[in-house]
């Protein structure tokens, strides 16, 4: 689903401005010293305002953030291993979550195709933009394929053993990888057939 299509003021704002704003916020958060809690607080307030402006339900945004939270926790968790890591952990968690909220907000108020168009206008290397476009296009196809395989697996799964389910899942992931790589070859052929150089 493309969640970027809505009717709030933030949805309607030009994609270029939103991308620039998001980049500024992420850079600001990243460059602020971790002792500058006031600065982070200002960013948090700005983001809070933008959330209200976007009229997206808070629970929806939090759920989206939760999806990527293991990644953030993994990185921040490493900080706990060093002496006095507690404070750093809190600061990293705060910073990472602010950045995460910025990108989640951007992704859910701007259609992906518009973001790609802005990147093209900014003359971001074409290989990067093409890869990004293709990734977005085939994410849905792969997700559909995974869902079909999951359904097919579930319809023939009669035991409830958790270990078996993990084993089956690993074979699904393997199959998906093989299918994705075969599809990539077919897509490349289709691109060549229409003159891709």
């Amino acid at each position, binding site marked *: 689903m*493309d969640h970027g299509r809505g009717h709030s003021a933030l949805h309607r704002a030009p994609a270029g401005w939103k991308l620039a704003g998001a980049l500024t916020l992420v850079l600001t958060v990243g460059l602020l010293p971790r002792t500058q809690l006031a600065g982070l607080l200002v960013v948090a307030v700005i983001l809070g305002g933008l959330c209200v402006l976007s009229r997206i339900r808070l629970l929806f945004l939090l759920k989206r953030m939760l999806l990527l939270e293991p990644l953030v926790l993994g990185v921040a968790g490493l900080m706990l291993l060093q002496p006095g890591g507690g404070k750093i952990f809190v600061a990293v968690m705060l910073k990472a979550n602010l950045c995460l909220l910025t990108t989640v907000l951007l992704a859910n108020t701007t259609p*992906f*195709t518009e973001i*790609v168009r802005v990147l093209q206008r900014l003359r971001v290397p074409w290989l990067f933009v093409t890869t990004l*476009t*293709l990734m*977005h*296009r*085939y994410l*849905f*196809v792969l997700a559909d394929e995974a869902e079909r395989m999951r359904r097919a697996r579930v319809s023939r799964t009669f035991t409830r053993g958790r270990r078996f389910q993990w084993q089956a899942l690993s074979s699904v992931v393997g199959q998906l990888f093989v299918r994705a790589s075969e*599809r990539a070859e*077919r*897509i490349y*052929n*289709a*691109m*060549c*057939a*229409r*003159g*891709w*150089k």
Partner: protein
Amino acid sequence: MNAIEITNLKYRYRDGLEALRGISFCVVPGECVALLGPNGSGKSTLLLHLNGLLPEKVSGDGAVKISGEALSPDNLEKIRRQVGLVFQDPDDQLFCPTVAEDVAFGPQQLGLGEKEIAVRVKLSLAQVGLAGFEQRQTHHLSHGEKRRACLAGVLACEPAVLVLDEPTSDLDPRGRREFKALLREIPATKLIATHDLELAVELCARAIILDQGRIIADGRTVDLLSDEKLMLAHGLERPHILHHRHPH
């Protein structure tokens, strides 16, 4: 001059499977030919050869000629301009986010100007009955719409030869009927690999039957498909439409 000329074409996949074992035939300009045969008979492999997508390194041995010109590493681009290939799975072919961008892909690769591209996009979408679909997301189209968008993307390159791989598979009866009517309107030389035998009868005066990488028969579609023994021997069957056809 023949639109397509294939002479003793052989191909073996890297895993050792011999997909084509000496194929030879010609297609004259404006002809519409059905390529029939069971699964794994080499139809799709043959179609990929017409666009120089197989073998991985085009040898230039003259086995495949398009409009009298032998396929070689130097003229791949030119040949691909002349031969429009519509793939079996529309999801493989629609790789751009919106319909307009996808249809514009071919003309862009041809190096056309923006105005010309816009005109071609509009015309080809109208031709396949998808006018107004420009900004639709490709992954949200129905299967029938995807097929049409694929065809529009190829028509936008204005190919002289149109090669279609299973164009009506997975379409509902109405979608099939409409797609057949659409194909009938396109004046290009057509080579259609299909299991849809009714399509073969309705659209193609001539048919080639392929099995295990060899041409088994080449002749009038109605004659070949009426030969029940031949049909059954090669995984096909006499289509329903011929049962009701009167001899006069």
